[in-house]
């Protein structure tokens, strides 16, 4: 019975990264199966002027559709969504996105925490959060919320991270479910859907 509930539960993967994470994301995307049946949301700290190229760059690595998340857009499986520059990306309970241009959080907009926290609220146990390399503590509060909502929490092994601070913060401040080497990340996601 419980297994059936899990099977029917809607799933999502959210990936957050800052300094040193782009390479990791590109590697993950190149190893994802193209028929992945869950949505993947990527929140990457970046400069405002860099934006359109990033979606193209990510798309060049995968057969999955990659697009920037739009305000009020219904979230669909099999699509990789990218948080737009200079907005926070929020996940609504009806599984749509909304954007928010409120204050920066952890010096960041988009903030990984905001997307992780709202996605945890919307997807509960169906959510997997993955926090990558970075020089900032953004994402840790979000991972805690994912955990509190019974989702799965994974971080990049700090030893493999170009900038270990961000995943290390998560390990120091909470109980993470998985500490992953770069090549273990895509198999985790592929196994979800």
């Amino acid at each position, binding site marked *: 019975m419980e297994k059936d509930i899990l099977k029917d539960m809607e799933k999502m993967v959210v990936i957050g990264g800052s300094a040193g994470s782009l390479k990791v994301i590109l590697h993950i995307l190149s190893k994802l199966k193209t028929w992945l049946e869950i949505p993947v949301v990527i929140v990457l700290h970046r400069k405002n002027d860099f934006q359109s190229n990033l979606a193209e760059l990510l798309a060049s690595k995968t057969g999955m559709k990659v697009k920037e998340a739009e305000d*009020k857009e219904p979230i669909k499986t099999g699509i990789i969504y990218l948080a737009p520059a200079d*907005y926070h990306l929020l996940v609504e309970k009806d599984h749509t996105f909304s954007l928010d241009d409120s204050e920066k959080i952890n010096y960041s907009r988009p903030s990984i925490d905001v997307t992780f926290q709202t996605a945890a609220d919307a997807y509960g146990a169906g959510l997997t959060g993955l926090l990558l390399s970075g020089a900032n503590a953004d994402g840790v509060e979000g991972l805690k919320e994912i955990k509190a909502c019974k989702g799965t929490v994974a971080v990049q092994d700090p030893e493999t991270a170009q900038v270990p601070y961000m995943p290390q913060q998560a390990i120091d401040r909470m109980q993470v479910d998985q500490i992953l080497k770069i090549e273990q990340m895509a198999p985790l996601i592929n196994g979800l859907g």
Partner: protein
Amino acid sequence: MDSTVGEDEIKLLLTDLLEIYGYDFTDYAKASLKRRINRLYTLDRFPSFAEFRYRVRTDSAYLQRFIEQITVNVTEMFRDPGFYKALREQIVPVLATYPFIRIWHAGCSTGEEIFSMAILLKEANLLHKSLLYATDINPQVLQKAATGIFPLTHMKQYSENYIGSGGKEDFSKYYTANYNMVKFNEDLSKRMVFSTHNLVSESSFNQFQLIMCRNVLIYFERDLQSRVFALFDESLEKLGFLALGSKETLKLSDIASRYKQEGKEKIWRKIS
């Protein structure tokens, strides 16, 4: 988030706001609203939701703070310079053909955009025959906007934005610095009218050739967005322009078929 204020409690608050004060936040996008309310709850260190609710219900001064804090008032001058460049080069020359120009800044917040617009109009020698209506739900931010006083620390960024928008003047000629604040010249604010207006519940109050409403609609749910688009449609003259934020679109709205996007910036023209 350590959700101290949950969904059911937010519903109670929103009902209070509507019943007691007439502020209707029920069709605001929920995830953002929940974050804002929890942020304020934590910031003001309420020991319990009951006390928070009581304060909102009974203290009208606190209500003003509540409105100011749960609405987002992040803005800057010449935000998205490419957008202002398009305004300057494509839209202002069209406005110039009118004997009298009326512009509505809906959700103007602390006024940075309306002063940007005034500078564009002044540089096109049109400000004297323009009237800029600036409205917001929130009387506090309007008061700030009307002073034309902004922090000096922002001027470097604003000056860069201004240059990015095609500005050729020395930006600092538009203000006088005093300690850590600057005051924009009064000839810019002379043609501005400030008034509270709630897009959710109030109707059209004039006809305009340009309506600016940037990064306001993202806070609304889709149905409310549609209602506001209808309000803008009613308030725009034929061939008038509607300008939205960089991630907002008219595309999926009921009025889309009668509007045509001007270039790649988020500016639409009412064609029928």
